[in-house]
Each structure stands twice: as C-alpha cells, then as structure tokens.
C-alpha cells in the first residue's frame, strides 16, 4: 500500500523525461519551465492552505523576496547567486517566523486579510525602493552560476527545474504521511482535538508557514535567474491570487493537484490567446465553472469519481 503513494510521482517523472522530445520548439519548453516553477511554489502553498488549513493571500510577497534578494544582492553587491538565494530564503523565513505568532492567532477571513496586508507591504517596498530595485521598471538578473558552471538555455533549465519539482513532490508526499504531517492535517481537521493529543498548534502553524515561505522565496530566486529580469509584478497581489487559484483548482490537500493546477492555469492564458481581448472573461468563466462543478478541485474530484482517495 505505501508503494501506490508514489505511482503519480513515477508517472510525472516519465512525462517529464519524455516531454522535451515531443515539444516542437523553445516556446513550449519555456512554457513548461514556467509551469514547473509554478508547480513548486503551489506545492509549498498547498501544504499551508490545503493540508494545514491556513490561508495565505500574500504568498507572492515571499516569491518577491527571493526574486529581489537574488537580483539586488548579485547585481549591486556582487554576491554569488547561491549566497544571494540563501540570504533571500533566510530573510523570507525570518519574516514569516516573526509575523506567524500574531497572524495565526487569527482565523478565516481575518487571517486572509492579515496575509493579504503582508503581501501588499512587500510589493509596495519593492516598487518604491527604486534605487535598489529599479522600481516599477524592474531590473536585470545575471545568469545562475554555481561555482564554474553556468546554467543557460531552456534545455538545461528544464532538467534542473524538473529535478527540483520531483524532489519536492517526493518530500511533500513523505511529509504529509509523517508524524509531523499528520499533526498538521489533524490541526486542520480539528484544532481542539489535535491540542488534546499534544500538538502545539501555534508551533506547527509557524513551522509550515516558514517552510512554505522559504520554499516560495527559493523558487522566486530560481525564477529571477531563469527569466533574467524581475519586475514588481512577481510580488504582486494578483500573483498571490493566481497562486491560491492554482491550489484551489488543482485541489486543496492534494499533492498532485498542485501540479495539475499550476500546469492548467499557466497554460490557460496561452490557450485563450485566440479570444482577442476576451481572454480574461473566458479565464474567469472557466474558473467559475470549475468551482461550481468541482468545488474540491480537479484531482480530488476525479480521484473520488474513479474510486480512489
């Protein structure tokens, strides 16, 4: 039985291995890379929202911290990419830990508002510190070089990002089925029941918030290097909403749902490009349709339909 948990992982690995040979050109490879990066961020966010049951409407803020730590520290201060990436992750982690205690005293709508505020503050700082960040115009980011090896070209990036996603999926699957993960899901299911069996609820909420913030920041750094340019949009409220939507459409508390949600919502705007100005309307309509007919998200709904949980 524990074997079957990884069936999905194996399927994804096979698809990832074959995909580059089926894609006609680099445009599609670029799209695939962006899907995979989003999938990683969404996976981390789903651990927080879907499994632990704590909403964050400011998660792009942490992606922004990573992206700009990489951009600013490498460009202005000559840091190595790896050091800048780790500094960003550390910053995101410390910030998340500092705000976690007061923020997670809140629940439901209030928690949503507080995290929303946090995300907006980060995005305003990024936009206004123009001397460092280039303001609304953004700033260029040097290529990702580790020691003497420099990552370049879509092919290389594709393999690296695929590796990151597979590792993250594996670790997430392990985590949710470990004592830590069960405690996390239990506090979602019933906070009081988890408390009386000894779960320090505040500590667990803090831990998963920090984990998902650090992961978002790392992926923000990766995005910055890959795209070679950062703009304040990366830390934007709309990006936060987009990430939450990917979680919800794919399926809350579904590891594979995170991947499906990220893939679909990254591809959708491209697929709808033919709608000539109506693409946003079509996009919204599709989201509404999904929520009305599949409120639990794609993967859990389909899994239930085919008799698996």
């Amino acid at each position: 039985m524990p074997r079957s948990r990884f069936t999905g992982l194996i399927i994804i690995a096979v698809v990832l291995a074959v995909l580059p040979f089926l894609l006609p050109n680099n445009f599609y490879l670029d799209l695939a890379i962006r899907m995979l990066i989003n999938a990683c961020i969404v996976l981390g966010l789903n651990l927080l929202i879907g499994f632990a049951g704590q909403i964050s409407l400011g998660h792009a803020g942490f992606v922004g911290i990573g992206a700009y730590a990489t951009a600013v520290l490498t460009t202005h201060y000559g840091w190595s990419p790896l050091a800048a990436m780790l500094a960003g992750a550390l910053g995101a982690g410390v910030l998340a830990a500092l705000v976690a205690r007061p923020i997670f005293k809140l629940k439901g709508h209030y928690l949503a508002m507080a995290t929303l505020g946090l995300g907006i503050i980060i995005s305003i700082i990024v936009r206004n510190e123009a001397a460092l960040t280039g303001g609304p115009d953004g700033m260029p980011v040097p290529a990702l070089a580790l020691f003497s090896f420099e990552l370049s070209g879509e092919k290389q990036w594709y393999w690296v990002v695929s590796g990151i996603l597979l590792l993250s999926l594996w670790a997430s699957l392990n985590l949710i089925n470990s004592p830590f993960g069960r405690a996390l899901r239990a506090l979602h299911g019933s906070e009081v029941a988890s408390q009386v069996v000894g779960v320090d609820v505040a500590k667990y909420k803090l831990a998963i918030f920090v984990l998902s913030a650090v992961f978002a920041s790392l992926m923000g750094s990766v995005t910055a290097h890959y795209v070679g340019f950062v703009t304040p949009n990366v830390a934007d409220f709309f990006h936060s909403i987009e990430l939450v939507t990917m979680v919800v459409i794919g399926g809350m508390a579904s590891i594979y749902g995170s991947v499906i949600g990220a893939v679909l919502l990254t591809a959708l705007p491209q697929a709808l490009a033919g709608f000539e100005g109506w693409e946003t309307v079509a996009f919204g309509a599709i989201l509404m349709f999904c929520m009305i007919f599949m409120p639990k998200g794609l993967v859990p709904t389909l899994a239930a339909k085919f008799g698996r949980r």
Partner: protein
Amino acid sequence: MALLEVSNLTKIFGGVRAVQNVSFAVDAGIVYSVIGPNGAGKTTLFNLITGIYVPSEGQIRLDGRDIAGVAPHELARFGMARTFQNLQVCMNMTALENVMVGAHLRLDRNLFKGALRFPSIARRDAVLREEAAELMRLVGLEAFIDAHADAMPYGALKRLEIARALAAQPRVLFLDEPAAGLNPKETGEVDILVRKVADSGVTVVLVEHDMKMVMNISDQILVLDYGRKLAEGTAAEVRRNPDVIAAYLGTHQ
C-alpha cells in the same frame, strides 16, 4: 494521594457562574462519573480540567502538580486524554490516521526526518499502524480500519475518538458523553469498553446521561446542579440522596 484533585473550582462566563466552588478528588484506577441535568456545568468542568478553558478561581492538581490554566497540549504530556461530546474527529483523514495522531507525543515529529522519510520514521510508522489497528479492534471498529473518517457512521466515530485518546496511552481519560446518540446495543458495548479501559489501569472520568450505564460502571459519582456540587458518593449512595432525587430524577418519587 488522589490522582486528580479539584478544589474550589469556579468558572464565570460574563454574569453566568457555570461552575461554582466545585471540589472533588479522583483516586487512580477508578471510574469516576459526573452527572447532572442539562446545563449543570459538566462539560464546562471537563473543559476546565483539560485546559480548554482557564478557571476563574480554584485549583486543579494532577499528581500534586497544579495544572489550572495549563494549555491542553501541555496537559497531554502529563498523561491526560479526552473525547468530546460534539465529535472532534478529523474528517480530512482516514480512521486509522485519526488514531495514529493520538500517539503524537510518543513519536519523532521532526519535519526534516519526516520529509526525507528517515528509515527510523518509516519503521516507527509501520509499527504504529499496527498499534492503531489493534486499538480500533479493541473499541470494536475492525470493520472501519481501512475507512476514511468521513465515511463512518456517528456511533463508530464516537468510538474512534476513544481509540484516538487511548493511542496517547493516558493515565487519566476524560470521556464526555461517550454513549450520547448511541442505540442501546452500542451503549452496552461502550459500557464494557469503559470497564475494560479502567481495568487496564487507566483512570476514567466520565460525563454521561445514560443512568443505567453510569450506575453500572462507576466507582464514584459526582452530581452537579446549576454548576454546584450537589452530592458525591457510590452509585447506591447517590441514588438514595434526597437532593439528587429532587434535582435530577424529579420530585414525584
């Protein structure tokens, strides 16, 4: 010395004194029942002792240690476990996982070891899975070992909570109306189960409306009325107490 000692416990909600000056002691290894009409303060008393509420006044001692106002997750470390009158089952998990969560404090909860699936974690989880299944059999839920919690009927969920509490290997177990909403056959089974748990050395504190069950299995009974202690004693003593008859069983007799 008594395992649990409550003295002058009071809880005030706004202007309502839900529990007033209640004192009692529970010896280790017995079944101690708390009864009383609706709104007598039984569940409030439970919530005070198990740390869900902070007492307005009074002391609660477990093994001589003052535990009034200590957070629930800390109390679990001292060997306290409980079930809830209104079900608190994690519907987002399987039945077996619910029971496994009960063992939380006995496990290595390290995040990184869990994410990397250290062999020690995998081994312990495999053993725990067996333990949890065994507990489910003990409470009569062998049919639901592979079930998801949200697919289980009410009566089974009540017993699932007991299994989860037992997974913590508590010294004192608080059961808040374990027979509420159960049919007579199920009530009889819970009756036997509670006795079995007590005989295994776990002290049981019970809130229950089912008088037959209470009179059957209790070593000591505490009667509450309007948040106050009305009487305390064995089943026979309580049954004869005129105050209890007046307040609880009705004045017609």
